[in-house]
């Protein structure tokens, strides 16, 4: 017996089914499946998932993330990646030659880096690396934060939503999988893109979100 439908919103502790078919976001007690999160139900052939509607970023190996440098030491930078724990970027893991003890010459406190998570510890702390040509320092300070669980809506099906925002605003946008979004472009365009991101953050359970965002962007541009 499954007690819920697809796209139902459930609270923690709500009974989902008694068939032992719970998957992510659920737990089992006395052969019954309950929800762990305030989330949305997704039923597939393989079982019931609950996708949380709010939550924290937990690093996964291979994630591309944007972090802010909060501390510079002799051999590493300490980076805030929006996760429960601070993260270390070692001087050996960058794509340029860094001199020991002079790391602030390359990346200083308050600057942003685009990097990859390459190791995750059991307590969800992580190490990041900047090896590879696609990673590096991000110049501008224009960032916006969005709940990581809402990122799929911001990106859209095969990047449809984010490409639409890029085309409409002519901005360069980099999304970190930790929920930090970096936007670069002309001032007006940048403001438009940021307002679109904020709109998605607030209305991400809406249906036909793409149409609404398009209308919002046209509105904003009309005023300018």
């Amino acid at each position: 017996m499954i007690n819920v439908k697809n796209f139902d919103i459930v609270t923690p502790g709500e009974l989902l089914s008694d068939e032992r078919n719970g998957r992510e976001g659920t737990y089992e007690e006395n052969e019954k499946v309950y929800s762990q999160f305030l989330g949305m139900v997704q039923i597939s052939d393989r079982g019931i998932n609950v996708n949380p509607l709010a939550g924290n970023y937990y690093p996964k190996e291979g994630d591309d993330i944007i972090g802010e440098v909060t501390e510079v030491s002799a051999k590493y930078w300490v980076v805030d990646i929006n996760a429960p724990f601070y993260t270390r970027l070692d001087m050996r893991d960058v794509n340029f030659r860094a001199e020991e003890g002079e790391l602030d010459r390359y990346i200083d406190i308050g600057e942003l880096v685009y990097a990859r998570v390459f190791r995750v510890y059991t307590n969800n702390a992580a190490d990041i690396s900047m090896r590879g040509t696609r990673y590096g320092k991000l110049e501008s300070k224009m960032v916006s934060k969005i709940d990581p669980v809402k990122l799929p809506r911001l990106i859209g099906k095969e990047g449809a939503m984010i490409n639409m925002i890029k085309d409409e605003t002519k901005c360069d946008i980099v999304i970190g999988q930790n929920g930090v979004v970096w936007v670069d472009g002309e001032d007006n365009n940048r403001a438009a893109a940021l307002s679109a991101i904020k709109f998605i953050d607030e209305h991400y359970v809406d249906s036909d979100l793409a149409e609404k965002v398009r209308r919002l962007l046209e509105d904003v541009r009309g005023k300018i």
Partner: protein
Amino acid sequence: MYEERFDKRKFDELRPMEAETGIIPNAKGSARFKIGNTEAIAAVYGPEEVKPRHIEKVNKGIIVCKYDMLPFSVPDRAKPGMDRRDIEISQVITNALNRAVILEDMPRAMVNVRIYITQADAGTRCASLTAASMACADAGLPMRDLVAAVAAGKIGDSICLDLTKEEEDFHEGGATDVPIGILPSKNEIVLLQLDGKVTREELKKVIEIGKKGAMEIYELEKAALKRRFLNESKS
């Protein structure tokens, strides 16, 4: 004898309630719960690194809870900061939340819960616990269940639900106050205190009536948590 309640409620009737989530933008999760004239605001921060370091647990997370009554919440000014009573209530709320939140899923992390009472009219620890559990759910923490808490008790010879301050101070026959917190879908008691005198049989009845009241609160909590998302989908 206490035959009719001061506010004309039935003996097993709750005061009018309000619940709301997402009221503090800077917190990860937040909630407001109001029952009668008692109002509690809860905010949840974290999970984050444990400070001070020595309270860290390697295999599970910890909850640090602080309950405080604001100076204007009671007729006499309450001294700001934690007094003995606040420390006790913080502790019982922490114990209750430890059962509700799945701490094993966040090793070495800490969750901060701050609760403020803006208006007090008895039953503040129950209102706080209810608000805190809603705030935890709103913050996206993994939880076994929400917590619903309500005070039940005995006034004179009658068993009552959700006592007010006026009733708690009732003299003829004495008043007994029993705060009860449960995990509604598990039917598990996570908070039970007793202040006053009851017999064994009466206590069973008091717990029975308290559980019934808590189930009502649970329905309201669920509705409040879902409302934010249902409203947005209509707009």
